[in-house]
């Protein structure tokens, strides 16, 4: 679904008008892409700042294998 505006300037209002808000296929495609983004961000976040917090929190809870968290994270992406 495309809106072809001949020679229209690229303003934000024009961009907004082009977005197919009611198109189920566009929404479905968007949801799929958003899902991949959310997956990526969760994994990225866990790799970056969680490990130390998680290990500390787990150690406080008395977990013996809290230090395994980095190892687990290293394995996670292979399950795609």
């Amino acid at each position: 679904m495309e809106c072809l505006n001949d020679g229209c300037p690229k303003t934000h209002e024009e961009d907004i008008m082009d977005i197919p808000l009611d198109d189920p296929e566009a929404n479905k495609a968007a949801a799929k892409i958003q899902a991949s983004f959310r997956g990526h961000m969760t994994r990225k976040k866990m790799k970056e700042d969680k490990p130390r917090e998680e290990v500390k929190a787990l150690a406080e809870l008395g977990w013996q294998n809290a230090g395994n968290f980095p190892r687990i994270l290293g394995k996670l992406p292979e399950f795609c």
Partner: protein
Amino acid sequence: MAPKKDAKAAPAKKAEPAKAAAPAPEPDVVAAPPPLDLSTVKVEFTPDQQEDYKEAFGLFDRVGDAKVAYNQVADIMRALGQNPTNKEVRKVLGNPSDEDMAAKRLEFEAFLPMLQHIVNDPNKGTFDDYVEGLRVFDKEGNGTVMGAELRIVLGTLGEKMTEAEIDALMQGQEDENGSINFEAFVKHIMSI
């Protein structure tokens, strides 16, 4: 917020995941899918995999009851390399209400077939799916999309993302013109 509710006559809402042909509880852009029967899902993960999943699962248990909250399940699946939509997660959880999402907890044995179902999904997004999805917004046909437009799309279509989510996602992705090469972007997204 009442912690536990008896199944009173709520309008077209069921507390338990019923198999009866109930009408869709909430209006949706697309028709609600039929209730999912997880008893038919065969868990095919190896014992080693299940052990790793159980460890990851346990790391999300903040209560210490060997369970996780329903509203953590999406993140656990993402941590385990999957990319389910929020809708798919809710479906696999039996279409719980918002209250159930916050209050109900799930043990690992019940989680496994849910994860398997998501892993088995034949409609999982591929590199090409994402690239073609973004290409729709490539006005000049040069392999780039305007960051500003992508932000609007992500915030208004599909499962809308919040501004904070979008900012985190787009950080460092736009070039000096505010454009994004979407093939490179998708490669980056899929690399972790």
